């Protein structure tokens, strides 16, 4: 683990916002993580289980759990979707 830290903006969607009273509907909230953290590390930090997770996007692109984060990233986190 690297010793520097980075700030990540996280916006949660659907009912994932429950349990995060500080979540702003448009800006979400900011999380401080250790440098070198991945999307998966962020989800673990937020205690969002993989079964509750549909997709994560960064700048309009889907990212996988092992994708590395960089300082200032904005991530959008969605639940699984179904249906039509």
């Amino acid at each position, binding site marked *: 683990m690297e010793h520097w830290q980075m700030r990540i903006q996280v916006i949660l*969607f*659907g*009912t994932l*916002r429950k349990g995060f009273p500080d979540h702003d*509907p*448009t800006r979400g909230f900011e999380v401080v993580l250790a440098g070198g953290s991945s999307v998966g590390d962020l989800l673990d930090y937020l205690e969002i289980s993989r*079964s*509750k*997770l*549909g*997709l*994560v*996007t960064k700048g*309009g*692109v*889907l*990212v*996988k*759990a092992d994708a590395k984060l960089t300082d200032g990233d904005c991530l*959008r986190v*969605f*639940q*699984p*979707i*179904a*249906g*039509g």
Partner: protein
Amino acid sequence: MIFLKINMNRKSISVEDVPQEYAGLGGRCLSSVLINNEVPATSDPLGSENKLIFAPGYLSGTPLINTSRLSIGAKSPLTGGIKESNVGGTVAADLAHLGITALIIEGAAPAGEYYILKIDINGDAELVDADQHKGLRTYALVEKLKQTYGSKHSITCIGPAGEFQLAAASIQTTDADGRPCRAAGRGGLGAVMGSKGLKAVVVAQGGKRADTLKDAATFKETARAYAQAVKADEFSGEVLPELGTAVLVEPINAAGAFPTRNARSGQFENATKISGETMAAMIKERGGKTTHKGCAGCIINCSNEFVDKAGAYVTSSLEYETIWAMGGMMGNDDLDVIARLDFLCDDIGLDTMSTGVAMAVAMDAGYRQFGDGQAAIAMVEEIAERTDFGKILGNGPAAVGKHLNHERVPVIKGQSMAAYDPRTIQGMAVTYATSPMGGDHTAGWVVDQNLKEFGGTLDRFSAEGQVEASRNTQIHMAAVDSVGICDFAQTGLASPEGIQNVYKMITAKSGKPFGEDDWSQLGLKVLKAEREFNRRAGFTNRDDRLPKMFYEEPLPPLNKVVVISDEEMDSTFDF
């Protein structure tokens, strides 16, 4: 288990036991097989040879939750092919409780004559002159019919658009609160109902003549297990009740697959203003309802009641596809305008998807400005006023494109695409192109499989595996639409025992063994009948294609095009 046949030429009604060849069929399977057998494929969709079928699903009216699904079928004036349009509300359960397997509307009343088909609690039916109701919009019509017959009836009806026999006309049916806000929108079946001279079908609720279950104890026990699975699932148990289908706006937009401004972009910069999250907060603040039961026997409650700033009812239910068609597709970010347009479409009897996309095409051609909500409201009113442009708009996007000499018309077999751009979810290209229904999302929704990054199996930008995924989902959905399980209650199917539970309930109702092969055979029977009808109606492989905009115009911001080849499209079905 009876067919109620209504001949609109003779104004006669006959009751017959379901013939052996149709025994055990329901919903889409019954309507599509009937139409393929009995309607001349080259006939005029608005002529007396066409038939209009109302068929509850095979499991409608049983103790299983979320099965008040009605298949309405006919030859479509929009696509020129066979059509099944699926709708919820309460009518499917009510027909099934009267032991009615299908209503079959034949012939046509003389032009300008309208009738109401009234079915009482004993299942006795009569045709009642509806001259006094001519021209009424659906909300006013339903109020009058409830005054005459009492509120304990389901009402399935057309508005002015159906009377004008426009190709985007819907058939509206009442929800659990008795409002005509549930739409069999696709395919222009409201025009077929109008051509028959049928203004409304009024069905008594609370019938006691439902089909006997051969093994009621097993059925009930299995239905309980199925309901528990639907409740336990996060999407149907938590997300849909809270946010409804509008929850899809943000993720589909984030994935670059939300067709915006007549599909010139895959992302709408103001999507957050029309998202499910924003809508739910707005409804709650204004005193409306976010968790609302729309259909009989529903335990999901994905519906909502949208209210204005003063807290007064505007519409129910504001859904993802409508928010897209009346929002992103037109570049409109005003939820109040979207809600008003939704209400107007329900009231005039119009498909929100065909109407929204038709307006997006008009805006793309420069007829009006993208994002001009008031212009959109005025255009929809023109349909009811029957102005020259209103007549064109009411016939859907292809009619508008032709009139304005505009090439960018996102229709397949004459019917508009839905709210998933096929350039960034390639599997939807296969479904849109090859479904016998024309552009349709419910026929084979392969969005989740395409999200490989998080649990899906397919690369959404690649052709690999897309044909197989779409084919399998289309077969599966044809079976789902035949047994009459709500699309969203399919979450109960997710586990292996989930689909086994469905087989078990079919067996418990029929007394005959039913398994995995039978499920596939059921779906295939539907698709074979539908494709056979379409072939005889003149469709060829060349109709199983998308408009060239999807192959040639890269979709920003991901700049992808459809990469499924013609050969791959043609390999979807070998019949």
